[in-house]
């Protein structure tokens, strides 16, 4: 296995590197949290990094010919190929370094995908990438809960009931998306015992996210991070509230922040406080009712939504993480 870089944990937000790897030139929407995710990701990883991005907003809106925002080497990959792209890039480097065809040095390999590319189409490729313990790579799934680049269509990671161009509330069917959001990170952690690091995060908690990127890049082997990114266009809210909505997703217990390092689960930020009983969860209404995509939900729908979130905290074996029922005491 090739070496990893020395990327120490950042203590305090003021110590986040000032150097930018994702600069001007991108054309993302106002209030785009995925753009912030990209910026923090590459700040954490540093310049000796190759980034491969699968099709999605962060390709199409970000990377226009002659105005790329990427300071680091960057390459597009196909919608469902983040896993294969990371594997191929890492394998190419590892092979040539081992054979002396290229200078042997640690180079970070990060492949990112949206929820459409990762949670839906690319799942098998990501799974395969996570089986290759011999390659150091990170797959980052930025989840804005829809195919946001193609006009906001529902994905396997969209919340129940969300209005999208493929799940519009109509006169006969109020709820068109009846699927519950996939529990992706635990699925990948549980399914690939050789993987040393799987985490969830949110750019609203920038320091936590930065340090998770660094841990993923330095622990060795293939790793996975799932980030929730509020999307003003897809979620239908005023762009100035992106940061707040990210916090609310966590504070309502809907999005749980944790890391699984060498099999050990640790919740972070408000999720940890909720878990330990230091603070109580906010009502999901506070989160849902601020987004136009849920405007059609009735009181009954909101109660149902709340009950599902309650269940994940009160009845799951590992609250908010693993959906098996608690064993009998």
């Amino acid at each position, binding site marked *: 296995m090739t070496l990893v870089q020395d990327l120490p944990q950042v203590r305090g937000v003021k110590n986040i590197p000032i150097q930018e790897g994702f600069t001007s030139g991108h054309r993302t929407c106002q209030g785009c949290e995925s753009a912030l995710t990209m910026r923090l990701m590459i700040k954490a990883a540093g310049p000796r990094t190759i980034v491969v991005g699968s099709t999605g907003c962060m390709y199409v809106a970000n990377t226009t010919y002659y105005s790329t925002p990427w300071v680091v080497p960057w390459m597009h990959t196909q919608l469902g190929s983040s896993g294969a792209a990371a594997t191929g*890039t890492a*394998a190419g480097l590892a*092979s*040539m370094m081992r054979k002396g*065809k290229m200078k042997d040095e640690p*180079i970070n390999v990060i492949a990112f995908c949206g929820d459409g590319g990762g949670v839906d189409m690319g799942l098998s490729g990501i799974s395969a990438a996570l089986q*290759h313990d011999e390659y150091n790579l990170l797959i980052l799934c930025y989840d804005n809960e829809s195919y946001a680049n193609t006009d906001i269509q529902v994905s396997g990671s969209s919340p129940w009931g969300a209005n999208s161009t493929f799940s519009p509330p109509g006169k006969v069917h109020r709820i068109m998306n009846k699927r519950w959001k996939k529990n992706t990170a635990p699925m990948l952690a549980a399914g690939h015992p050789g993987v040393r690091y799987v985490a969830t995060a949110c750019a609203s908690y920038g320091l936590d996210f930065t340090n998770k990127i660094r841990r993923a890049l330095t622990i060795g082997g293939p790793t996975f991070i799932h980030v929730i990114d509020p999307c003003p266009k897809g979620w239908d809210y005023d762009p100035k509230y992106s940061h707040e909505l990210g916090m609310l997703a966590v504070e309502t217990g809907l999005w749980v922040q944790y890391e699984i390092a060498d099999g050990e689960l640790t919740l972070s930020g408000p999720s940890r406080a909720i878990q330990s009983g230091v603070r109580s969860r906010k009502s999901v209404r506070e989160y849902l009712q601020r987004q136009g995509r849920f405007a059609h939900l009735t009181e009954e729908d909101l109660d149902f939504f709340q009950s599902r979130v309650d269940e994940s905290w009160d009845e799951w074996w590992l609250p908010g993480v693993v959906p098996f029922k608690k064993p009998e005491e």
Partner: protein
Amino acid sequence: MTTVEEQLFMTEKEELISGSEAVAIACALADVDVITAYPIRPYDTVMQYVSQLKANGAFDCDFIVAESEHSQFEIVKHASSVGARTFCGSSGVGWFYAFEAIAVTAGLRLPVVAMVGNRALDDPGAFGVEHNDALAVRDLGWMLYWVATAQEALDMALMAWRIAEDSRAFLPMALSCDGSFLTHSQAIVNVPTQEQVNKFLPSYDRGRLQLHPDNPITVAPQVNEDWLMEIRRQSNEAMTRTPGVIKEVYEEFKQVFGRGDPSPFIEEYMMDDDPDIVLMGMGTLALPVRVAIRRMREQGKKVGFVRLKFFRPFATEEVQQALGGAKAVAVVDRDYSFGSPSFGGVLFNEVRAALYPLEKRPHVVNFIAGLGGREVRVRDVEDMVEITQKAIDTGKIEQECNWIGVRE
């Protein structure tokens, strides 16, 4: 049992091996860095041999068994972008499962080398050879070569990296090998030494297009209508340059290894006396056709054969020269193109188009034969010649596309 010395290709030797094994040996000799595999018959025999070579220490590569053909081709595409020499392959619908990756590999001008073990596109289920799988990429910027023998498989694989990785080309190349007839059939093959190969094949240098922190470029940004046409034009110009590169590489190969045909693009058989009827086809079809021609020659019929080796780039002038003097050309397609002009095969329509600018054009008759791995028999070839002769005798083609050896 082979000795370690033999395994490490220190001495030149003759071996009884299949086409797939020949390509696997070429991978080792070419010191390929990243190889990806996914099982599908019949191509996957090459990967079985590759994995044995690696397991036995005959060469060092990252051999990755992907979880699908799509990932298989994506992995080598990205490995190639950072400067690694790559190899992969597939057959039939597996090749189609990877189609998205295959299309962009050519668009990105990445010199991936692949082996297609030609196979029918089932359903209905069929393992046998048809050329439609590899032919599907004919418009995308892949160089396509049809192999006839195990020796040619080894030789052309070595040339493939040299041609594809030439910065004037930087285009992917596929070696099409007829399923079973070539992938699984053994023949005596001369295996060169590592020293000879090193003299012939330099290492892959991606140059200023290499994705690396020391060269922080952006590959494949959104270009849209603003730039795409210029980029397509560049790909076209690269393909236009490939015949020159191929000729150069082929000549050098002949010098180093002491074997090869006069032309890298076509192989002519019994063409010296300008025969009235010329058969044309690709791949292992050459075997029964040669036998049939020898038999017909004994009976006094002037028949020759032109085997097209490179389908892309298509050697228009060479084909015109070889076929232009004939009275009639019989094109044998191991493929179909439903609804195409004259409802004929792919090769037929390409050859007919290539001959169109000639002032004096031969009759061009099409034969669809050997689909799904059905054997093309000597007497099938004789039937083709008989039908073609009728076109010469009557001055007109009764039926342009004829299915041969089919239950009717």
